[in-house]
């Protein structure tokens, strides 16, 4: 026999100012099953919660309705209050008479009162069908996986590992370090990027709780929070890391030279190569499609065209004989309790902007290419040279927002870092050669950050960089110069600058493969491919899939301090999860009545979380069964179940139909 208690909240005047509480109380008292009705000024206050627990005890209430603000606000609060009185916390329903009644019908007090009564009527009807629910406990694997070895991923791995949790850091490139390793200096302090990054890279590789898996990719993810099973593809380096001493003879002697990806193809590398001198692990890798011996082997299998040299120079010259042709790609399966995704970003490809002539004119380069040129370990040894003729440029024009804030190329967002890196590069250019004059064409100068505004002023005042507010209409070659035609919108005139070098501040976009990885992980992403956080303000590093966290620029454009802070935050969330002995699952999930199941498995087809399994009964029938750890409680299967065998706890068909039919009883 249901003994329902109803609390009607005044919420100060928020509700009571519109809804006639007295009338509501009188009407609710007459509802079937209601044995106790009270009104409170602030039900969520200590006093209010205490009256709830007292009322439950005094009046032996076994179900409760609170008519107050939105359940999104205080459902959890009132569940705790109910639990304190010894009642199952799921025997509670909220009638939303503030957000969805008093606040939107303030001019129609009578109708609002009427509506409040009906909303409570519905909640009473629903609660009468509520059943006690019990969260379950499941065990968890105390290991973490970090995907992506850029600065955000390194930071996350270090923080998790320092809490004593075993961590695997997976990176698809042969070395960790990410974009930050490609930078020369960092704004606004002009710290040398390698000098602050490489110690962290080394720390990560030496940390007793971190295992690096470079040249590796996540291929499949199964399981659920606390119990993920991940397939990782370890690509063959063809170099035995335990034997290699990184002496360098192999990559010096390798005869095959190809454009170096790490140097943005401004320089060359050999087919066996180390991405950059400080790479971690500091072991070379053989780029198979370019290796002459591999080509030779292919020719042997299918002799067509000229016979290539057998080569094998690296193998012959390697003192510890570390070159190992027998190494093969290998799929390993590992178990983890938490996953941090830190796949970072890549820069926008500006060839789509025909007017800038990137790809047509070699002296139109991107910011990251400039970064490689400025770097002392870069392809030009730190000297700034025009790619076309190797001359030192004297006039350099920067163009901002290339692939940012531009609807036309499908990139309407701000890339956040470009304003600052243009200022930085103009300062660095002046330091390299005092005769260089830099011009920056900008839309707005976005310098929000500690020391950022001062830094961009420094570019103007100390480095003499000229900032021109306007866009560029066209760049064309005249003689050896690049004619940059644009507009200075502050003086309302056209300007034309004869530049030696043009730097396009190419914007930030998600790394290639980020979307596919998001699909593998069953997490959502936006139209650009940036991964979605669970809440943009309050859950910035969580995803909608429990146990998977996000760090760094895979979420949105971020600078280094943001990415580092983000890595730490994601680590803290993972640590919080992994510090528990077991996990409590939400009981509001689907369940199957095997007696009603007709084995059509429509539920399996519609389930977005692969939470429906097949189970063989003793009579040989195969029926659907819900994996409660995977089920998120959406109810898709319930609505599509033809025989009505599935129900969703907390939102059962009976509860919802009771709500509907209560209205006009």
């Amino acid at each position, binding site marked *: 026999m249901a003994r329902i208690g109803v609390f009607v909240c005044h919420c100060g005047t928020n509700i009571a100012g519109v809804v006639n509480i007295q009338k509501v109380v009188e009407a609710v008292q007459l509802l079937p099953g209601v044995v106790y009705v009270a009104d409170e000024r602030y039900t969520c206050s200590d006093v209010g919660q205490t009256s709830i627990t007292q009322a439950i005890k005094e009046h032996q209430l076994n179900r409760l309705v609170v008519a107050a603000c*939105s*359940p*999104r606000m205080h459902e959890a609060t009132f569940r705790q209050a109910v639990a304190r009185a010894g009642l199952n916390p799921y025997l509670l329903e909220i009638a*939303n008479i*503030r*957000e*969805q*009644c008093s*606040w*939107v*019908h*303030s*001019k*129609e007090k009578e*109708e*609002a009162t*009427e*509506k409040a009564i*009906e*909303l409570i009527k*519905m909640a009473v009807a629903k609660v009468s069908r509520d059943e006690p629910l019990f969260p379950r406990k499941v065990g968890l694997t105390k290991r973490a996986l970090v995907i992506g070895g850029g600065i955000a991923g390194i930071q996350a791995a270090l923080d998790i590992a320092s809490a004593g949790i075993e961590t695997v850091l997976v990176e698809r490139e042969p070395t960790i370090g990410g974009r930050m390793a490609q930078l020369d200096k960092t704004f606004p302090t002009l710290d040398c990027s390698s000098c602050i990054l490489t110690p962290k890279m080394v720390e990560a590789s030496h940390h007793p709780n971190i295992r690096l898996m470079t040249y590796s990719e996540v291929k499949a993810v199964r399981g659920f929070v606390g119990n993920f099973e991940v397939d990782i593809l370890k690509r063959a380096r063809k170099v035995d890391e335990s034997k290699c001493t990184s002496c360098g003879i192999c990559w010096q002697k390798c005869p095959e030279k190809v454009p170096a990806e790490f140097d943005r193809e401004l320089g060359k590398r050999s087919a066996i190569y180390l991405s950059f001198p400080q790479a971690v692990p500091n072991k070379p890798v053989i780029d198979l499609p370019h290796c002459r011996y591999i080509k030779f082997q292919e020719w042997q299998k299918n002799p067509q065209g000229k016979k290539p040299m057998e080569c094998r120079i690296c193998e012959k010259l390697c003192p510890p004989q570390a070159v190992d042709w027998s190494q093969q790609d290998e799929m390993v399966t590992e178990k983890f309790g938490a996953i941090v995704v830190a796949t970072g970003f890549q820069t926008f490809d500006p060839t789509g902007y025909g007017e800038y002539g990137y790809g047509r004119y070699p002296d139109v380069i991107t910011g990251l290419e400039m970064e490689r040129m400025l770097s002392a370990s870069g392809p030009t040894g730190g000297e700034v040279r025009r790619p076309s003729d190797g001359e030192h440029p004297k006039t350099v024009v920067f163009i901002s927002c290339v692939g940012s804030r531009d609807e036309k190329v499908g990139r309407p967002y701000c890339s956040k870092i470009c304003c600052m890196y243009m200022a930085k590069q103009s300062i660095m250019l002046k330091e390299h050669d005092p005769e260089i004059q830099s011009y920056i064409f900008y839309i707005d100068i976005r310098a929000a950050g500690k020391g950022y505004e001062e830094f961009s002023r420094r570019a103007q005042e100390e480095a003499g960089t000229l900032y021109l507010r306007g866009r560029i209409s066209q760049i064309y070659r005249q003689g050896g110069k690049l004619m940059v035609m644009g507009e200075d919108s502050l003086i309302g005139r056209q300007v034309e600058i004869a530049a030696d070098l043009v730097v396009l501040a190419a914007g930030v976009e998600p790394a290639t493969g980020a979307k596919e990885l998001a699909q593998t992980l*069953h997490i*959502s992403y936006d*139209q650009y491919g940036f991964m979605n956080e669970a809440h943009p303000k309050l859950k910035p590093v969580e995803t*909608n899939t429990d146990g998977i966290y996000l760090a760094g620029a895979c979420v949105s454009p971020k600078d280094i301090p943001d990415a580092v802070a983000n890595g730490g935050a994601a680590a803290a969330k993972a640590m919080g999860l992994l510090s528990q002995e077991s996990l409590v699952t939400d009981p*509001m999930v689907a369940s199957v009545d095997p007696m009603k199941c007709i084995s059509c498995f429509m539920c399996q087809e*519609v389930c*977005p*979380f692969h939470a429906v399994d097949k189970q063989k009964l003793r009579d040989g029938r195969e029926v659907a069964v819900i994996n409660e750890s995977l089920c*998120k*409680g*959406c*109810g*898709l299967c*319930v*609505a*599509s179940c033809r025989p009505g065998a599935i129900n*969703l706890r907390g*939102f059962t*068909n009976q509860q*919802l*139909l009771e*709500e*509907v*039919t209560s*209205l*006009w009883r």
Partner: protein
Amino acid sequence: MAVDAEPRIVGFLCNWCSYAGADLAGTSRMAYPPNIRIIRVPCSGRVDPLFVAKCFEQGVDGVLVAGCHPGDCHYVQGNYFARRRFNLMGRFLDYLGIEKERLRLEWVSASEGKRFATAVSDFTQALKKLGPRTNPT
């Protein structure tokens, strides 16, 4: 039975987007007609056509089903199922002799309080124009 000029509406709102959007309309004090009674569901894909049928059987004038925008579903694809399901449901209503305009599907995100308020106002207006239900319930 007296003729009731004010249409009665039941709204099934998904917990993550539309219910939150309705809450936002409240927090932003965007007034809309008090004709709607909201039922919270986890996802628009949870709404069984039976619920809608039951509403009409009870004499409801209109049913609103609201979920996240296509592509934004908290459960990845629940709203796509809802869209297909209620497009079909519309045809079924025609068959039953209930104007299919009495069932509306709307996409309202958690940040679209205004959109929710407008949707309810429009729907209420449209139902008023349509007049009270004529078919037996």
